[in-house]
């Protein structure tokens, strides 16, 4: 389980002090193996950008309505997912970090399961719950709500698969804040809300921010559950990953443009998150 925290830590990017050990020329076997792995991770990304740069049609394809609409839909839906994560996920993360309560173990399992579940399974599960014939389908239908094939279904799929990442990160962030600091603030007369806002949240921010980045990245890349639960319709449910899938069947240029765009957006957010986290850690 702790590897999730480690994963969150990797994103939050505390600049580790490098040991000033003298470098020997040449690679050790360990270093060679590590280098191979790094190359394996980097080469496909470089190849993607390289191919996109070499295809003259790619930049024209980036302006296609299919691409623009998919980008807009992805931005809007992931923004809503992030808002849901912050509003609903933060209290949950705080409770998990600070309180003991009955059924806490169960809650933890419920939070962890979507992390390990294949997204397609999540999509089928969402259909079984919120589909027209799903567990809650009749109740929803009675108030005139039909979720499948709507943008709302896209958001639900994203929330299901990605918000647990935020809860885990934020929880680790809150746990990193010494309880004594909160107690000291309370003794000094700060209200609970004041303590939370002025002491706990700022100190928990690196964890919270890294959780948010992971959550957003997972929401942006969400594919399987969306295809299952929300279907594939341009401008309504066709997010970037779905558009890439559709474009692959028709127009490799558009698929390349979308892929590079997605890569650029992801890289930009990661860099931004590193900058923000870096500033916080060492003012």
């Amino acid at each position, binding site marked *: 389980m702790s590897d999730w925290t480690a994963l969150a830590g990797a994103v939050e990017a505390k600049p580790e002090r490098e040991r000033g050990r003298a470098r020997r020329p040449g690679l050790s076997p360990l270093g060679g*193996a590590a280098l191979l792995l790094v190359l394996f991770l980097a080469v496909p990304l470089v190849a993607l950008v390289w191919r996109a740069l070499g295809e003259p049609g790619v930049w024209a394809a980036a302006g296609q309505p299919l691409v623009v609409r998919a980008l807009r839909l992805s931005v809007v839906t992931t923004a809503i997912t992030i808002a849901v994560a912050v509003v609903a996920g933060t209290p949950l993360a705080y409770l998990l970090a600070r309180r003991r309560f009955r059924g806490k173990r169960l809650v933890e399992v419920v939070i962890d399961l979507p992390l390990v579940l294949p997204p397609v399974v999540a999509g089928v599960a969402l259909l079984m719950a919120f589909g027209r014939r799903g567990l809650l389908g009749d109740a929803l239908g009675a108030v005139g709500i039909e979720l499948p*094939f709507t943008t709302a279904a896209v958001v639900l799929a994203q929330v299901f698969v990605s918000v647990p990442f935020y809860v885990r990160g934020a929880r680790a962030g809150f746990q990193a804040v010494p309880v004594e600091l909160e107690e000291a603030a309370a003794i000094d007369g700060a209200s609970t809300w004041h303590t939370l806002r002025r002491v706990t949240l700022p100190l928990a921010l690196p964890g919270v921010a890294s959780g948010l980045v992971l959550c957003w990245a997972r929401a942006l890349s969400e594919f399987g559950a969306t295809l299952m639960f929300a*279907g594939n*319709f341009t401008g309504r449910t066709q997010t970037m990953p779905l558009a890439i899938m559709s474009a692959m069947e028709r127009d*490799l240029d558009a698929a390349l443009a979308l892929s590079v765009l997605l890569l650029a957006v992801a890289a930009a957010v990661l860099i931004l998150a590193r900058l923000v986290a870096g500033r916080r850690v060492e003012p």
Partner: protein
Amino acid sequence: MALVAVVAFLAFGLVLAGCGATAGGAEQEAITEPTGGAMVSATPEAAGAPTGEVTVFAAASLTDAFQEIGAQLEADNPGLRIVFNFAGSQALRAQLAEGARADVFASADEVTMEGAREDGSIAGEPLIFAQNQLVVILPADNPAGVQEVRDLARPGLKLVLADETVPAGRYARQVLAAMGQDPAFGSDFTDQALANVVSNETNVRQVVAKVQLGEADAGIVYASDVTPTVRAEVTVLDIPAEVNVVARYPIAIVQNAGNPTGAQAFIEAVLSPAGQDTLARHGFLPASSGGDQ
């Protein structure tokens, strides 16, 4: 840290070795007998008994029929193994163009096969081995109360089609367009029906699934998609012959096939009376039933 990298790399290497580092679909399994591929380049007179592994890339709509034909062929030829990769015809064409290894390609339409030939992925002349028609399917409880094909244009109906990039989606749009030309349907039928589309599935089997689950009110799929399992959960509405499309399925040997003898054997099995019989049982029309469009 470095240790972790080593372990990860080793694990990765094992995985690569396990799938023979081939590109393409999820069908690959390691060829364990090294003798399997070796005989292929041998003399043609050994062509009598195909052996080794034959990789067949086939349109998703062929899944059940081809698996049956493949199993029969394997039973008749000990030492022959048929491995399938079923997906949308376009996706298969793209995989072939990017160098996926295969021996046989069977497409759900001639356009895609022609495209694959232009890509240089096909050796020789493709043969038409089956035909298919479209039908409208509804969930068994028919939530939208669809009585006839004309109801597809009723406002608020949830219609699911295959994406227009896959043959089934293209044919479905052709059928809807043909209906709009028919006075029995009315000239605004096509636009109204297309306005009811809530999802363009990347694969025709997903259209069936969405209808089967009752999430869609109607879908347009191949007659052959209504398999015995599906039939229990959906209602089928026939599309009038004068507006229906006849999809012709071509099959061909892939350029630089690793096992041309095996590929030829599979194609012959599909075209044989027994193979045609299997296809017919799965809702396909015989290749020879002259329904040219």
